[in-house]
Each structure stands twice: as C-alpha cells, then as structure tokens.
C-alpha cells in the first residue's frame, strides 16, 4: 500500500522535472512518421517509379529513427538523477528507504516515462499508415516499428541510467576507460594501424547479441 504511494510520488516528481523535454520529444516523435507520408496520399494507381521515389524518401525519414531513439533514451536517462545533483543527493540519501529500493523506483519511473514519446510515435505511425492508400505490394508496419522504437529507447535509457546511478568512482572509471580508448585510437591512427578500439567496440555493441543491436536494422514504416 505504501509502496504504491511512494512510487506515485516518485513518478510524479520525475514527470514534473522532465515533462517539457518529454512533450517536445513526443511532438517530434509524432511528426516523424507523418513526415514520411508527406509526398503521397493516393498512390493506389501510381506508376512504379513514383512509388519507388516515395519509398526512398520514406526510408530516408525512417533512418532518423535510431538516432531519435538514442536521443530519447539518453535524455530520459540523464534526467533521472539531475534534480538530485544540486542538493548533492542529500534528500534521496536521508529518506527512510534503502538505496537499492530508491534506485529501483527511479528506474521504473523513468522507464514508464519513455512511453510518452514512444506512445506519441506509435500514434503517429498508425495515423501515417492509415492516411495513405498503399499500392499493392507495399505494406505498412506501424506496430513493428513502434515496438522497435520503444525497445531501443528503453535499452539506451537503461544503459545511461546505470551509468548515472554509478558511484562517483564508478563514473570516473567509465569516463577514463572511454577517454583512454579514444587516446589509444589516436595513437594507432598516427601509426597507421589497421585496428581501432572504438570501431571494434562499436561493432561488438551493435551486432547481435550486443545490447545496441536493436538500433541497427530496418526502421522502415513502409516496405515491400
């Protein structure tokens, strides 16, 4: 009973803090799928080349989506703890709950808030799919893309949240490792080596079963 009341307050406080950003992201998320139907309304009887052009344009718009998911996840993840930084976490640390409990509450609250832009995107995708009469052979995948968007956002959010929740020492360690890798790569570059740490790491992360694999792949709303 009390847990529900506590969670409600944590969620409300998170929402108050992040609502401007979330609303902006939601508006953008809603608009992107609609942008991909900008060119055509009635393509039922259109010629192949026109449909082809339109699919290419729609695909270009869709290529923005993984970056947008990345941005949403990063923003919501960073905003998870920024309100506490000014007070040096004193308030959170002196509430009568364990750290683990409080961190979990914050995590779940943030995860729920990602539904705001993801939900707006889903609505936009559905509207986009029904607002255009598709020629035979072309299909719309609003549900698939919306689900992919939300999962990608959640994944990025979880990673950023984990980093923000780490102790000072942990955060310094992570930044040092990344900074160190970049420096080593610069050195390797000057030595004209074929190898790059950051490139390898990126490949590892973005290819299945890497966690960021969800960001790659097809984001097309309209497909043959």
């Amino acid at each position, binding site marked *: 009973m*009390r847990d529900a*009341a*506590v969670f*409600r*307050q944590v969620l*409300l*406080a998170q929402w*108050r*803090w992040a609502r401007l950003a979330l609303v902006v992201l939601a508006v953008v998320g809603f608009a992107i799928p609609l942008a991909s139907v900008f060119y055509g309304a009635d393509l039922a009887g259109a010629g192949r080349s026109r449909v082809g052009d339109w699919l290419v344009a729609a695909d270009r718009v869709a290529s923005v989506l993984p970056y947008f998911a990345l941005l949403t996840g990063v923003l919501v993840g960073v905003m998870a703890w920024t*309100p506490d930084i*000014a*007070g*040096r976490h*004193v*308030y959170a*640390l*002196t*509430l*009568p*709950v*364990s750290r683990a409990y409080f961190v979990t509450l914050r995590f779940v609250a943030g995860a729920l808030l990602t539904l705001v832009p993801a939900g707006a995107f889903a609505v936009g995708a559905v509207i986009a799919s029904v607002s255009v009469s598709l020629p035979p052979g072309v299909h719309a995948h609003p549900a698939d893309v919306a689900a992919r968007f939300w999962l990608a956002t959640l994944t990025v959010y979880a990673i950023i949240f984990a980093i923000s929740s780490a102790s000072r020492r942990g955060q310094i360690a992570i930044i040092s490792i990344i900074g160190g890798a970049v420096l080593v790569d610069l050195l390797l570059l000057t030595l004209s080596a074929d190898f790059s740490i950051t490139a390898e790491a990126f490949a590892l992360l973005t290819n299945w079963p890497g966690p960021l694999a969800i960001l790659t792949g097809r984001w097309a709303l309209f497909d043959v």
Partner: protein
Amino acid sequence: MTTHAIETRDLCYRPGPGFEIRDLSIKVRQGAIYGFLGPNGAGKTTTIQLLLGLRRARSGSISILGLDAPRELPRILGSTGYVPERPHLYPYLSVAEAIRYHGAFYPGFDWSYAEQLRKAFDLREGAKLSRVSKGEMGKLMILLVLAQRPDLLVLDEPTDGLDPVVRRDVLSALLDFCSQGAATVFISSHLVHELERICDWVGVLDRGRLAAELPMNAFKNGIKRIRLGRAPSLVGDTPFVVISQERSALEQVWVVRGWQPTMVQWFDGVGAEVKEIVDLDLEDGFVELLRGARAPQEG
C-alpha cells in the same frame, strides 16, 4: 538502563590534513533538547553528516534510537527528522507537491498537522520552491520534519540567516511539538542566545573534539569569572575546574567551571582575597571555555 537517543563512542573521521574529528563521544538523552555548540569550522555539520550516514567514519560506533548506524539507517531515518544546513528539497516542486512527496515516505505522517502548520506559516500551496524566500524555505523544512512526528529531530543551524520573525515562528512550532511528546532534539547552532532559552543540555565542539557536555543549568550557572586581589599562596587541588587564569600586577582573574557559592571559603583558606564574582552568560561562558580548551595544559 535507558538507551540514549544518540550515542557515539570514539568517533574518528579524517578526510584530509588540517581537519579531524577525534574520539568523539556524544551522549544525548532521550527527550532532551540538546544544543550542539561550536565556532564555525569546529565540525558540527560534519558530525551530523556522520550520524546520518552522509559521511563514513573511520572508526568508532554510532547508535541512534538504540539502533546501529549506519547499518540500520533506513529504520533510523524513518523515525528521524533532518533539517540540513542548506535546503535539499527539489526546487521545481511546489509547496503542496513537496509536502505530498515527503509525506508518502513516512507511514506516520500527520497530514492534518502539516496543513495546520502550512497555514500557520503562511506558505502558499502553489508557490514553487525555486521562488520562495529563505525564510519560507526554512519554515517548510521544519514543517516537513515536524509533520513526520519523529522520535528524533536533527537540526543543523535551522534558523541561521533567517529574520527574527521567522526565527520566532520556527522555534515556537518546534517547542509546541516538543511539548506534545517526548521527542529528542539535537540542534546545532552558533546562535548561543537562542539555544540558551530552549536547550536543557549542551555539547560544545571545538576543532573536532568535544570540549564539554553538560546540563544547560550547570553550564550557565557554574561558569564564573573571579577577580582576586591577593593571589593564592598555594595552588593545589581546586574544588572547581580552572578554565583560564590571567595575571596582572594588581590582580588575577580566574575563570572557573563547576562553581558553587560555598567555594568562597576555599579562597579564604589559601589566603586569597576574592574581589568580585561575575556571572558569565552562555555566550561568555562559551568563549571562555573555548579559550581554556585551546590553552596548553598547565602542569
């Protein structure tokens, strides 16, 4: 044997050279209003942070409300109201939202008392915390901890920087709450005159060490400045504690602790002439105590 509300044993903390808390052994009785006095930089805030788990001591033990700190901190914090030196609430919330947020964490939160205090303090429900005045923020922080109805209140300079009217309101609310039950109050301040009225115990911290810990009455009434005409011919054991001595050609001035009126006879016995016995108020007594604590020990 009743447990103390707060008890530390040989607490040590050393973040770096130049500042240290050494062998700190504080005992705060249940139900007491304990004033934690000390000059700025003595380590009052650091001690409070150590008590509440915001810093980690190097050695020593802490017991709050009979529970081990920092191991049982969530349980301790459930019965403790903390007002830090600097406001720690979320500035983007409104007064009403801040109350709702805070109250959700405490099962025993008294919502009607919170509302009563809000009206008494004249805090507007919709006022954003980032825009309220320093006095209003101070009142809100007191409101939140009092409405918790805690067993222990830990207040770090709660009235510092507040105007006299707000200070009055805060102290009145605090004392009203204390009259209703047996809460213990641990209040740190350098506003000696304020503590003089409300505290029944006083602990003096100087440069990380506890210089004195005694009932307020004993502290106030027992510290005297004695002007002597003829110096005592023999200085052995004194029935009181000599905090400091000043010698000039004409007279000696001693500041002593633990004085009782009958001790004049001791001076007669050693051939000294007592010219005057001056009462020191808490502020003077505090200053003299610190001076004595810092002077090298006389063999």
